[in-house]
């Protein structure tokens, strides 16, 4: 009970900052809109490439935007811990008997809440733009779920990097470095059968692509349940592994003091 309560209290701390900061709140909400409209306009011609069979371009692109935004939002999670380290909050917290996992999990849950909020906005906008989501409500919920899982994994990774490096610059560098390759080495913006073979091979090991395959299959295509199941399983394992890594990072930080 106590670990869960502590996790939730850490989450609430993030939520309060979010609600108190109108500029931050506004940007979080506008960002999904801009991404969908921009990428939508940019890649509209994708549907005219011979061999493309992804249906309407909004249907094809929406899961891609959802997943990209999840990775990008989650990537910044570690910033909070870096600030805590520099502000003295971290040391005071680590002197307390708080469950170390809560320090990671609390901010991961917060990141996931933000991702779900942004995803719902994208989905609403996509519907307005004429997406028809053949997977129905259930399929769309699976898309939300994979975005949440992928976000949770990257939020933990971001926390681990933040606590170990303790430098804002390192985390900014890591997020910038990772985001575009992971997106381009997946089917986020382009149908897999139309990309070079080596990218297809690399994508097999790319968690972003696991999320995309599961989300797209469930929400907008004829759902392949075994594909959705295995990808969801892989993502769950990844979430747990990243959370364990981030929780251990606090111990490494403490040993360096």
């Amino acid at each position: 009970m106590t670990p869960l309560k502590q996790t939730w209290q850490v989450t609430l701390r993030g939520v309060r900052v979010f609600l108190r900061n109108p500029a931050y709140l506004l940007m979080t909400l506008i960002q999904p809109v801009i991404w969908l409209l921009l990428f939508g306009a940019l890649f509209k011609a994708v549907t005219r490439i011979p061999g493309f069979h992804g249906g309407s371009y909004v249907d094809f692109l929406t899961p891609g935007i959802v997943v990209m935004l999840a990775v990008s939002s989650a990537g910044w999670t570690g910033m909070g811990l870096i600030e805590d380290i520099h502000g003295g909050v971290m040391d005071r917290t680590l002197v307390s008997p708080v469950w170390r996992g809560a320090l990671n999990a609390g901010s991961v849950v917060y990141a996931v809440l933000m991702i779900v909020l942004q995803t719902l906005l994208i989905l609403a906008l996509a519907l307005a733009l004429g997406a028809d989501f053949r997977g129905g409500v259930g399929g769309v919920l699976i898309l939300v779920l994979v975005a949440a899982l992928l976000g949770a994994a990257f939020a933990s990774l971001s926390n681990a990097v933040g606590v170990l490096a303790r430098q804002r610059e390192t985390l900014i560098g890591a997020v910038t470095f990772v985001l575009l390759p992971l997106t381009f080495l997946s089917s986020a913006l382009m149908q897999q059968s139309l990309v070079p073979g080596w990218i297809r091979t690399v994508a097999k090991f790319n968690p972003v692509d696991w999320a995309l395959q599961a989300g797209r299959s469930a929400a907008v295509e004829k759902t392949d349940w075994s594909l959705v199941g295995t990808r969801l399983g892989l993502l769950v394992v990844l979430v747990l592994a990243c959370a364990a890594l981030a929780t251990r990072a606090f111990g490494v930080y403490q040993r360096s003091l």
Partner: protein
Amino acid sequence: MTLAIEATELVKTYPPDVRALDRLSLSVQAGTIFGLLGPNGAGKSTTVRVLTTLSRPDSGRARVAGVDVLADPAGARHAIGAVGQKQGSDPGATGRENLTLQGEFYGIAGRELRTRVADSLERFGLADAADRLVRTYSGGMQRRLDVAMGLLHRPRVLFLDEPTTGLDPEARAGMWREIERLAREQQITILLTTHYLDEADRLASQLAIVDRGRVVVQGTPEQLKSDLQGDTIQVGLRDSQDAAARRALARVDEIGDVRLDGRMLHARARDGAGAIPAVLAALDAQGVTATSVTLARPSLDEVYLRHAGRAFHQANAEHEEVAA
């Protein structure tokens, strides 16, 4: 009496070859204020980090409130309150939210937690500011909130790492009163680190002087100062009667090092209070009239000079050179 803190031969090195603690040992009796005095870089904060389970020493042993902090850090944490050198509160949250989160971390919840938070805000004079963001607090208020957070779970031992550094004189005096009140009203042991000699002198009943990672001397402030061959007696004279005054004091066995500085006479005595009647009698016999007598105890500055082999401000300056 029982020991609240017991540290034995603590060694801590940082790469590449900084020896922050060099077999540091100290013991603190329960219910007292213990001062760890030393210049910047002497190892005070490292000692606190080790004793509060934040950091592990390379070797050595440490017990706080009867719990071995190395073998059972989780157990020790409930008994320990810590106020770090840096501000420990979240500037983006209110005072009440900070205290509440702190309580949750210690497993306090519900009505009990709400009551404790409200009491503690009241007690530290933060009730009016309870629902304002900490970012808007003055330095003194932030420091009071830090102490309130360190005490919320009612620890048996409280560590205060340089509690008044960076505070203006008024806030500093307020913090001193608060620390004295804590020691008086609660059955709590306080270890405070400071590089202010006057702070250690005023607050601590026991003192350890730390230099280069080890305790160079430990005792009560009075003991440490009386080790320095007694006191300084200062006698104000009505007129400057140099020769007569000197003649008078030459006959008093209890004193030495007589200096006359205008109309102020200085002399050293092993037991100043005991020597004063003899001094006054001898002056009187020579027809010299004294207008005032003061007894000055040696300052901790002199104690530090003697045990660390260099003056306090000099040690601070050396550290800053190394750091720069």
